């Protein structure tokens, strides 16, 4: 196979290392970064939050295997932190991108954590002594964190951050930190990097259930969203994994799941199916049963979309093994009983034509996926276009799944449209593939110029 040997040498000669920017540190961005880094490219991974991990880090278990989400994600997060080819820029945002001949010049703002990243050991003493407690966004505001914090124990990087809004500058953290990492005067930093390609993996934003007035989310204590539920059943969550009502900490015995909240809903401005809600609701129904075996659980749905590998079987198990009751009907309204804070769900069972008025202790809204909050900004900075659904879109989403209207910039994961984890991971690798091809071509062009 001499010819192949030669090719090998030829490949190895390609010394100059091309670099790439990955926007977003969720499971998708992580996969893109790892793939490209493994191919030998230099990767800048930019995440606006203090830690990578994205929504997946918030999940308790994954469907349909019920793997513990953290258990499969954290190793990958650790890999990112360890990888020699990856430069991790957390708590950072892209300010501007300009085309420099074939490549891109990217200006990144590194927001100040007011903690010296090199010195902080993540020991957590500071947080122990910090007197300020604020709702923890990572726990959907159900749990609390300190004004100096890491969002969750397995955070990568394990570096603390002071949120200035709430900090009272009492200086306790400063006094307690043996590493002398606290720096209240730390200034935000601008970094400029030149990359050959950009992959946008900024993920999604959950539909704001408050917009569905008739369900009373935000008004009724015991109406929660699917993501709230994930934190409620998670052992590392605010309740230590005890599924309880927010109004009175009682164990809910009757739980309803309501599907298509903000999906397939012209009125809510999201016509499309969010692709994950059916399965995560089924998963959560099963988890609820595991936490509260005698719980009576109803799922109110329009169509169950168990389309993926092993999904149908999972759906069947929920029905037959866990005796979860599935009722085909879109819930019309939820009424709170003022005294008990219980909830009356009003819905037609479209298979019997019966109007049901069922009382529940807790209602979980299976909210859909909507475009990322900062999609506007990114659209402006990168000049990549969106589809009718508001997600970033390829000019030909079918064949060129991960392309954008701008050569060298690619999209992946839920930033391109609702997806479950495997589809996001697959698309992540797909984008990595396209990016690598772009980078290789760039190298060849450069070689060409040299000659």
């Amino acid at each position, binding site marked *: 196979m001499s010819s192949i040997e030669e090719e090998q040498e030829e490949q190895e000669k390609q010394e100059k290392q091309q670099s790439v920017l990955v926007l977003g540190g969720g499971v998708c961005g992580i996969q893109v970064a790892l793939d490209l880094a493994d191919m030998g490219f230099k990767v800048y991974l930019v995440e606006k939050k203090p830690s990578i991990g994205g929504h997946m880090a918030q999940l308790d278990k994954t469907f349909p*295997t*019920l*793997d513990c989400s953290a258990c499969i994600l954290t190793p990958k997060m650790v890999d990112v932190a360890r990888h020699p080819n990856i430069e991790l820029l957390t708590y950072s945002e892209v300010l501007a991108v300009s085309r420099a001949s074939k490549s891109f010049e990217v200006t990144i703002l590194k927001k100040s954590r007011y903690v010296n990243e090199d010195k902080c050991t993540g020991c957590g003493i500071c947080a122990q002594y910090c007197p300020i407690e604020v709702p923890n966004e990572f726990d959907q505001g159900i749990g609390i964190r300190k004004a100096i914090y890491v969002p969750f124990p397995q955070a990568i990087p394990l570096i603390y951050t002071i949120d200035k809004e709430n900090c009272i500058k009492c200086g306790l953290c400063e006094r307690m930190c043996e590493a002398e990492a606290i720096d209240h005067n730390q200034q935000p930093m601008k970094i400029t990097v030149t990359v050959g390609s950009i992959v946008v993996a900024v993920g999604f934003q959950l539909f704001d259930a408050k917009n569905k007035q008739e369900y009373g989310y935000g008004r009724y204590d015991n109406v929660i969203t699917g993501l709230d539920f994930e934190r409620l059943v998670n052992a590392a969550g605010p309740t230590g994994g005890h599924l309880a009502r927010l109004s009175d900490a009682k164990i809910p015995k009757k739980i309803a799941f309501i599907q298509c909240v903000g999906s397939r809903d012209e009125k809510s401005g999201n016509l499309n199916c969010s692709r994950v809600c059916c399965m995560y609701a089924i998963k959560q129904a099963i988890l609820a049963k*595991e936490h509260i075996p005698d719980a009576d659980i109803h799922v109110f749905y329009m169509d169950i979309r168990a389309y993926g590998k092993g999904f149908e079987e999972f759906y069947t198990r929920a029905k037959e093994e866990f005796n979860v009751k599935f009722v085909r009907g879109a819930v019309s309204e939820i009424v709170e009983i003022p005294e008990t804070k219980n909830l009356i769900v009003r819905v037609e069972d479209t298979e019997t034509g019966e109007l049901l008025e069922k009382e529940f202790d807790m209602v979980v809204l299976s909210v859909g996926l909507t475009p990322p909050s900062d999609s506007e900004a990114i659209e402006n900075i990168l000049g990549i276009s969106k589809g009718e659904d508001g997600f970033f879109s390829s000019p030909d989403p079918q064949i060129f799944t991960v392309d954008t209207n701008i050569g060298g910039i690619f999209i992946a994961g839920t930033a391109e449209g609702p997806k479950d984890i495997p589809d996001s991971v697959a698309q992540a690798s797909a984008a990595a593939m396209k990016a690598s091809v772009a980078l290789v071509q760039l190298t060849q062009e450069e070689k060409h110029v040299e000659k």
Partner: protein
Amino acid sequence: MAEEFEPKLIAFTCNWCSYAGADLAGVSRMQYPPNVRVIRLMCSGRVDPIFILEALKRADGVLVTGCHIGDCHYVSGNLHAEVRVKLVKKALEMVGLEPERLKLEWISASEGEKFARVIKEMVDQLKKLGKNPLRDG
């Protein structure tokens, strides 16, 4: 009254199919009796008659599991395992030990339910058979 006899079961699993099957049983939260101690090998073909005999000195039963015929990660390891287990069974009969104390099962990576079932069934059977006379202690 004396408490129910709790048989001791040693199971050899191959890494690729049956150990994965056992993992799947766990992931799917399928419950089975805790009487079993699993020993992971790379292939059921690795199971040496000595292992079985030594195991039978300390347990009431031995279970050997591997990939289904044709699915062996190492092509043919399970074929050899099959032959060996048959031979050992014969030997056991000769020394007057119930051959049911030794069992061979093919369990694939997707048969978590089967793994749980096999363990349950075998433990129940061993309960009926009672303590293994060869077992010391």
